[in-house]
Every structure is written in structure tokens, then in C-alpha cells.
């Protein structure tokens, strides 16, 4: 975990509301696929709290990039940064995607959740594991904003869905996933996307009893385990008690889908 001030190499808009931020660090930052950083435009008075962003790509030991959607005040402040701008960063944070004991892999990306799985796909490819990617977005514009081109460049089997059918299959990304598993494929699922999507992916995984890992989101106060604000409800033997809630930032952000109590949403949205 390194607390530092990084410098903006570029902050390009991929599609309206979606940007690719490349940062240069003074020191080497070792990151594993699925880890994240807490970022904030340097010396910005508002908002106070840093925001969590998955490491999208490692361009070099000192150059990392992030893919983000402009949601509110924090991401808006980041969107104003130009080359040379400064970013306060705490990195790397959280656990990473476990790929050791997976023979065959399925990667499900929903919307900006894609940011957390590009490095995973790269790793799986490097490890020579057979990998099928399902990439869902609300529209072609959003798909492009969520890094579609980078995923295409991986040359992995890729199924794209959009809610409005403007690109690929019309509908939700879980539909082709379900069909795929119904064909009898046994593989480990890695999913990142909106809560509802991951909840559905978890259900499907249980149905086909496929191992499934999900990278969760929660509003984060600190990102390193001290505020205990980012919790998700997990299944425990006894009644609600200590251990019923786990921190997304340090116990996660990646959890086996079957330990999460999906009916208890961590986000207000």
C-alpha cells in the first residue's frame, strides 16, 4: 500500500461520460488483477473523500491506467484533469482475482465493471486458460466508453450485449452466459458490474453449480479498512453477529458469490 501523488499522463474521453486516465508514479507500484486505488484530484477541497477505481491496465511498473464513468462530484473533478495534473493516490488496495485453480474461465463485465476485469483477461490469456468473455453495456456508446476496443484486442472469444441492441445481442449480459452454461460448459465465473447483474450471475452460477467470484462495490470512506463503512452482508452460521458484515475494501473487493447475501444491497442505488 503506497500513499503518493501521481501525475496525469493523459485523461482521454472514450465516449461521453467515460474516460481513460493514465497516471505516472514516482515509484514502482506492484498491482495484481482486480486490485483498486483510492483516487482524488490533488488539492481539491470538495468532495473530501477519495473514490475507488479498479486498476484497468499496467502500462509499465510506474504507469497505470484507470477507466472511469463520470458519476458525480468526485469523478467530475477527475474529468477536469489534464496532462501534468496531480492525483492523490492510495494503491494497491484489496485482494485480486484468484485464477490458480481455475481450468476454464468465464469473465462477465457489466458496464464500467469492465474496468476491473481487463487485467484478469490478460492474465488468463497469459496463463493459457481457455476464456470466454461476456461484455454487457446499455448501448454501443457505453460499450465503447467501457473499453470495448481493448477487450476486442485481447482476441478472446467475446460476446457483446447492449440493452438497446445498438451493438451485439439485444438484452442483458446474463442471457448469453446462461445459454453458454446450459451447453454444459464447466468453468469458473469472474464477474464485475452493477449489483443486480452480479446478483443474477450468482443465481445462475448456483443453478449450474459453477464456481463464481464477484468484485463488489460499496461507498468507501477510506479504502484501507479503518472506517468499516464499505461492508456487505455475508452468510454466517448463526444469527446476525460480529462477522455478519465484511469490508469490501480489505476483505474484498472480490468475494466468492456464494458467501454474499445478495438481498442486502450495499449501495443506495
Amino acid at each position: 500500500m503506497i500513499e503518493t501523488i501521481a501525475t496525469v499522463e493523459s485523461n482521454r474521453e472514450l465516449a461521453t461520460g467515460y474516460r481513460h486516465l493514465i497516471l505516472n508514479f514516482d515509484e514502482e507500484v506492484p498491482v495484481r488483477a482486480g486490485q483498486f486505488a483510492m483516487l482524488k484530484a490533488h488539492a481539491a477541497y470538495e468532495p473530501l473523500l477519495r473514490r475507488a477505481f479498479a486498476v484497468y491496465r499496467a502500462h509499465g511498473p510506474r504507469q497505470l491506467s484507470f477507466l472511469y464513468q463520470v458519476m458525480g462530484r468526485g469523478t467530475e473533478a477527475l474529468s477536469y484533469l489534464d496532462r501534468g495534473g496531480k492525483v492523490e493516490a492510495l494503491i494497491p488496495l484489496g485482494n485480486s482475482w484468484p485464477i490458480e485453480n481455475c481450468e476454464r474461465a468465464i469473465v462477465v463485465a457489466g458496464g464500467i465493471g469492465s474496468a476491473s476485469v481487463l487485467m484478469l483477461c490478460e492474465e488468463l490469456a497469459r496463463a493459457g486458460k481457455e476464456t470466454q468473455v461476456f461484455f454487457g453495456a446499455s448501448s454501443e456508446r457505453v460499450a465503447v466508453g467501457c473499453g470495448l476496443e481493448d477487450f476486442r484486442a485481447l482476441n478472446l472469444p467475446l460476446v457483446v450485449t447492449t440493452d438497446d441492441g445498438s451493438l451485439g445481442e439485444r438484452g442483458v449480459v446474463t442471457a448469453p452466459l446462461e445459454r453458454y452454461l446450459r451447453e454444459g460448459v464447466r468453468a469458473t465465473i469472474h464477474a464485475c458490474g452493477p449489483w443486480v447483474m452480479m446478483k443474477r450471475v450468482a443465481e445462475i452460477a448456483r443453478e449450474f453449480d459453477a464456481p463464481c467470484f464477484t468484485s463488489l462495490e460499496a461507498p468507501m470512506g477510506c479504502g484501507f479498512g479503518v472506517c468499516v463503512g464499505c461492508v456487505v452482508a455475508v452468510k454466517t452460521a448463526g444469527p446476525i453477529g460480529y462477522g455478519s458484515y465484511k469490508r469490501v475494501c480489505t476483505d474484498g473487493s472480490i468475494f466468492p458469490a456464494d458467501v454474499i447475501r445478495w438481498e442486502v444491497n450495499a449501495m443506495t442505488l
Partner: protein
Amino acid sequence: MNFALNHDPRLAVEIAGIRFNNPVIGASGTFGYGLEFAELIDLNRLGGFSTKGLSARPLAGNPPPRIVETHGGMLNAIGLQNIGARAFVEDKLPLLRRYDTRVIANVFGYSDEDYIEAINILNDGEGIAAYELNISCPNVKEGGIVIGNSSVAAARLTEKAKRAAARPLIVKLSPNVTDIRELARAIVSAGADSLSLINTLVGMSVDVNTRQPRLNYGTGGLSGPAIKPIAVRMVHEVASAVNVPLIGIGGIASAMDALEFIIAGATAIQIGTANYYDPTVTMKVISGLSDYCDCCGMDNITSLIGSLIKS
């Protein structure tokens, strides 16, 4: 071990017989059990820190969402999730004893008995400098009333806690009261060795789209720079009402902020929310206080305590 070289002697302060190498203390609930910061800062440079609220038994805490950011601050309703006093004594204290910093055990309970039970467990622990009684957590009121908002209830608990405590007793005040001076007087008469203030102000944020509170608990505690002016005012009021050392808390994010509290009457200060968005803020504030002493040619920061000049 000798870490003395790290410390600027001008910043040393004393509270209830405990010497703090400097007046900068990590606030409860924002500093975990201290160890989480070992990677980020030099704990040996830190004046001290207050643990996450410890209860006799481990607590689950509230369902999420537990936090939401507001302008200049944040609301939280963690609900005192903690590992429990026993686990703290057995698992955390041994590791903390490696560091030269004052460990304050923040104590919480739902009833007077809970508090006493927690204190008894902590009394066995080695390496605790003092207890901080959290009677002002707004996110766990039982039966609708917060002990810390009633002078009578607060004094009663303080008296019992003081009797049980094998260490100096700091009582943390609630800002959600009409007259904090009256509350402070009652608690000091009941035996508190020091007062820390303020805890969070009760607030609420509504998600207009879902028409639900943004926090699952409904209301939460407001902290951060937004509340600083209220905290400085209350420290100033209490300083004129009691004569035990005060620990100022509320929105501190810089040495200048810390100095406002000290001038208003605080002997030491605690930094809370700022640790989240600026994890090394405590170190920056300590250096800033040394710089201030240099500028003003001050040989002891204590000469600044309560030095407010009124027009």
C-alpha cells in the same frame, strides 16, 4: 526502545498524568486499532490514538449503506462494529506494545453494565494509557435516549466507570445538546479526568430518487470540516466551565485547524475523518505544529492552550 529522538520536546503535553509526545491523536472509529496505519505513517511519531469503540462482546454493526458523503463532511452509521474488548486485549495490544504511542481504549456499551464489563476486560490489558468513554454515539440509541445527551445519565455512568477503571478516564461529549457546559460540569463532578469533544452531530441525507434515507440506519453522525466551527465553539465553552484538560475534536485536517482548538482551550486534539482522505494527515499536523513553534519562537505549545483573546 528509545524513540525520543523522533520527538519535538516543544509539543509534549500531559493529560491526566499521561504524557503524550505531541497533542496529535487519531480519533476513535477513524483509526481502526492503530495497526492499520503502520504501513502509512510512523506510529512512533504519533501522540496517540483512540481505538474503534470496544464493547464487552463483539458487535455486528448496522446493515449497509453505512456512510454517505455530504458537503464538507460525511454521515456514518457504522453501529459500533468491533472485535470486542477481549480480542483487542489478546490480539491487538501485544502488537501495539511495539510502538511508542499512547493507546486510548474507546469504550462503548448499551447499558451501564456493558460499559463496566468492557472496562473490566480492558483492565487486564497491558499497554492501554487511558479509557475514552463513548457515551455519545448517535447511531445506537437504545430506548430512544442517548446516555450522553442527559447530564444525569452521563454523570451516573461516569461515576461507575471511574470506580471500575484502572486507568485515567476520558469522557467523550455529545454535541447534540442545548448546553454542553452543564453536561461537562456534571461529568467532571462525577469524576472524569478529562473530556474529549465533540462526537458527531446527528444528521440525515435523503436519496430523492428512492425517497429513502441514504443510510440504512436512517440517521447518521455528521463529521468532517463542516462541523469544525461548532466543535471549536463547544471546546471554548467547556474550557470556561471545567478545569480538566480537554481534547478537541471536529473537522481537524491541518495544523492551523489544530491550533484553533488549542487556542480555544484544548490541551490535545483528535483527527478523525481527515485520516480517510489524507491518511498521513497526522504526520503533517505534527510537523506543522513544530513549524508554528519555530515561527513564533514558542518553546512549549502548552503556552497556547486557551490563549484566545476576546475583543
